[in-house]
């Protein structure tokens, strides 16, 4: 029996604060599709980055066709036929498709026409519709991913690693991708894809490797297992039942209203088109949809960081369309942003300092002419207790906190600031289960207090669990709002692909 194409043996990787991989071992054969399954923080991306030469393992070996290899850079990996497509695409957005594909592979003069021809042929062969001369930043996300794949194919990759490939695709595009994976594997190549979505795994993989907390917890052939067993291995215990969202007494008062809201980006392209909806006090409106369809812009226009191209916004009966961010904060809009490290906090500052980020202009923290530091610390301490934030204290620098605890800091702050409306954008992305649970409980609690909540998320299970009504954004257009009772996966899936249903 000859050796598998790839074998990883006993790889361990330490970062300065965490053991990312511990004694990881598995193998992948030719023509095999392997799924690397695990929740956030399990160590899946790390081991793949080691395989691709972006990280160096502290212990362990990698063997290709039975021979040990030293992979110290992506160049070495590519020479062995290994190619990787990361979650955040490795594309130079200012350059053209062709320039991106040939980057690092060709020498000497750039023969544009020859490359474009070759790329076109390759694209046709796999059924992709890509123009080699197009500039990457103008392309939709699904097409950008195809560019990444073409890049791997151009270099005759025989092992393709894909990190969460369907995160940015509609269900149709995801199905297309899986088709491609099957065809590619049938041609004798291998695929490893990293995911946390059980459904994809069951659709496509030949074998499944489950990781948890940096270790391999199970290697199973797809045929012999089911979703329940997989999720047990992935999480370590049974999935807790979804919290019971009994609709509390709905106040009739409308708190947030958008009417005909359109928003444009820098290049004049519409990111939101004629969006209208309203949310009442004590209600959660969930906005679903694949990333990149206007969700971010919707949050931004409500919070004031993006200007209206047309339309109006009312908060508690007041037209806020022309108000700036600071005024909207003062009116009681809280915002938990998707990119928490960039938009939600200052990593180099302490927990206490981050707590007053949105209220530094307010007189409540002043003891003229200075800041009332004892008051701020007292507030921070009470939030630490109330939210069970694991930290040495209010003077700890937030960079040292884990992702979940950082998010708790932000949630604590925004929930206090958001006296009328709280906007949550991907609130549980990258968090472990315990933190996810906490955030969900908090959202429901705030709703119980009569606050108005706008929840934007790409995780359908989250949307289903928490929302009273659900809308889907597709290419900036709201496809229709459906009350929870009438919701099915099928309608959502169709809406996400752009088929709108009636009823707003």
């Amino acid at each position, binding site marked *: 029996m000859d050796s598998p194409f790839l074998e990883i043996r006993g790889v361990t990787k330490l970062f300065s604060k965490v053991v990312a991989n511990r004694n990881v071992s598995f193998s992948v054969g030719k023509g095999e599709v392997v799924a690397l399954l695990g929740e956030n923080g399990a160590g899946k991306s790390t081991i793949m980055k080691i395989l691709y030469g972006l990280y160096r393992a502290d212990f362990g070996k990698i063997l290709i066709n039975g021979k040990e290899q030293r992979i110290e850079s992506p160049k070495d990996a590519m020479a062995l036929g290994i190619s990787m497509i990361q979650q955040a695409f490795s594309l130079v957005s200012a350059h053209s498709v062709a320039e991106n594909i040939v980057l690092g592979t060709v020498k000497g003069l750039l023969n544009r026409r020859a490359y474009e021809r070759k790329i076109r042929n390759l694209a046709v062969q796999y059924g992709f519709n890509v123009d080699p001369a197009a500039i990457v930043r103008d392309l939709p996300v699904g097409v950008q991913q195809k560019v990444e794949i073409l890049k791997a194919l151009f270099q005759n990759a025989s092992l393709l690693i894909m990190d969460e490939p369907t995160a940015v695709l509609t269900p149709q595009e995801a199905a297309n991708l899986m088709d491609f994976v099957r065809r590619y594997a049938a041609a004798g190549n291998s695929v490893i894809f990293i995911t946390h979505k059980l459904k994809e795994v069951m659709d496509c993989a030949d074998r499944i490797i489950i990781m948890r907390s940096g270790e391999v917890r199970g290697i199973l052939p797809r045929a012999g297992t089911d979703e329940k067993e997989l999720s047990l291995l992935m999480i370590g215990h049974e999935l807790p039942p979804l919290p019971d969202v009994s609709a509390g007494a709905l106040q009739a008062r409308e708190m947030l209203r958008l009417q005909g809201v359109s928003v444009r980006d820098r290049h004049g392209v519409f990111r939101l088109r004629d969006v209208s909806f309203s949310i009442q006090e004590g209600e959660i409106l969930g906005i679903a949809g694949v990333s990149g369809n206007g969700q971010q812009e919707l949050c931004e226009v409500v919070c004031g960081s993006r200007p209206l191209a047309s339309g109006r916004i009312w908060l508690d009966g007041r037209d806020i369309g022309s108000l700036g961010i600071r005024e909207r904060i003062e009116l009681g809009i809280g*915002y938990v942003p998707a990119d928490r490290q960039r938009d939600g906090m*200052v990593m180099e500052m302490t927990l206490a300092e981050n707590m007053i980020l949105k209220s530094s202009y307010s007189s409540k923290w002043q003891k003229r002419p200075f800041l009332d530091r004892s008051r701020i610390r007292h507030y921070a301490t009470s939030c630490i207790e109330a939210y069970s934030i694991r930290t040495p204290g209010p003077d700890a620098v937030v960079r040292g906190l884990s992702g979940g605890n950082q998010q708790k800091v932000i949630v604590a702050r925004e929930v206090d600031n958001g006296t009328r409306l709280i906007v949550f954008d991907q609130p549980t992305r990258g968090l472990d289960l315990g933190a996810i649970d906490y955030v969900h409980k908090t959202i429901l609690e705030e709703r119980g207090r009569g606050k108005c909540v706008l929840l934007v998320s790409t995780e359908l299970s989250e949307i289903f669990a928490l929302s009273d009504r659900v809308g889907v954004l597709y290419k900036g257009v709201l496809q229709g709002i459906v009350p929870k009772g009438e919701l099915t996966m099928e309608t959502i899936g169709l809406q996400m692909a752009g088929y709108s249903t009636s009823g707003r």
Partner: protein
Amino acid sequence: MSPRFRDMLLSIAVAVVLGLGASAALLLFLGRSPVTAYALLAASVIRDGYTFADIFVKATPLILTGLAFALTYKANLFNIGAQGQFYMGAIAATAASLVLGNRLPGPLSLVIVFVAAVAAGGLWGSFVGFVKAKFGANEFLVSMMSTYVALAAMNYLLRTALMETKHEYPQTNPFAPGLWLPIFLRGTRLHAGFILAVLIALLIWLLLFRTAFGYRIRVVGHNSDAARLAGIDSRGITVTTFFLAGALAATAGFTETNGVQHMLVQGFNPNIGAEGIGIAILANANPVGVIFASILIGALKVGGTIMGQTSGVPASIIEIMEGFVMIFVILSYFIRSGLEIRRSKKELRRAQAL
């Protein structure tokens, strides 16, 4: 003392020693013994009260130009124009001093002159802040170029409107004695400007770390995206910090003309802006640290000058020492962060018993 703070002091001390060592090695090119030269430096600095006090005289403008860079640096802005703001302050102080003469009582005149300097430097600096805030112009380039413009203006004025009555050299008449900053240590050159500089440094510290405005400056400096979403007006902060920075550098101009030279001379303190940047680096942009860093560099300057006078070591050794010390401090940042990472990894490995 927390271990991180101790590490920082230690690494700065090592950096200073290494910087001086590298400069010392260069002396070999001149056929001089570094050891004797440095022994002389150390001895000369403490040899008498006058020389020792001179350290603080030299430190005074450094504190202020150091603050001029450090304050904007906290907002992630780069004020390379402190030299030009210094000149503008000096010009304004000189003009006001020459106009006032003996007309008003001393203390009142000094206050007026001070205000004139601060206004001139502040406006000159806020021009940079303004074009950055309004047009997004690169403040690094604009502030740098503004220095050369200020220099040209100063040279022009020294040749014309401000020129001494003798019309012999490009310098002004000496100021009336009432406009000299009082010396508070008899027998030395140490003037009230030093006290002023130290007080200002403490005020800037309070501003940055104890007020809401200073808090906002630091937020903008660390993370402009989060600052924007927090409703913080970063444009206002840009203009205000550049105004303050210009005012600080201009105060240095004031202390030099009214405290030391008692006139305006062409080509004086030609590096005070760049040296201020070095001070800010040494002090890690901390206003209190700036005081100590300035005293250190002041000592180097005094010693360097004496070395030049007595043993013929060229004055350029001072700039060499400053340059090397700055470079070694930069290297120490790298080493410290590397050590910290290695330390955490080792702790982790031990904890996991791997």
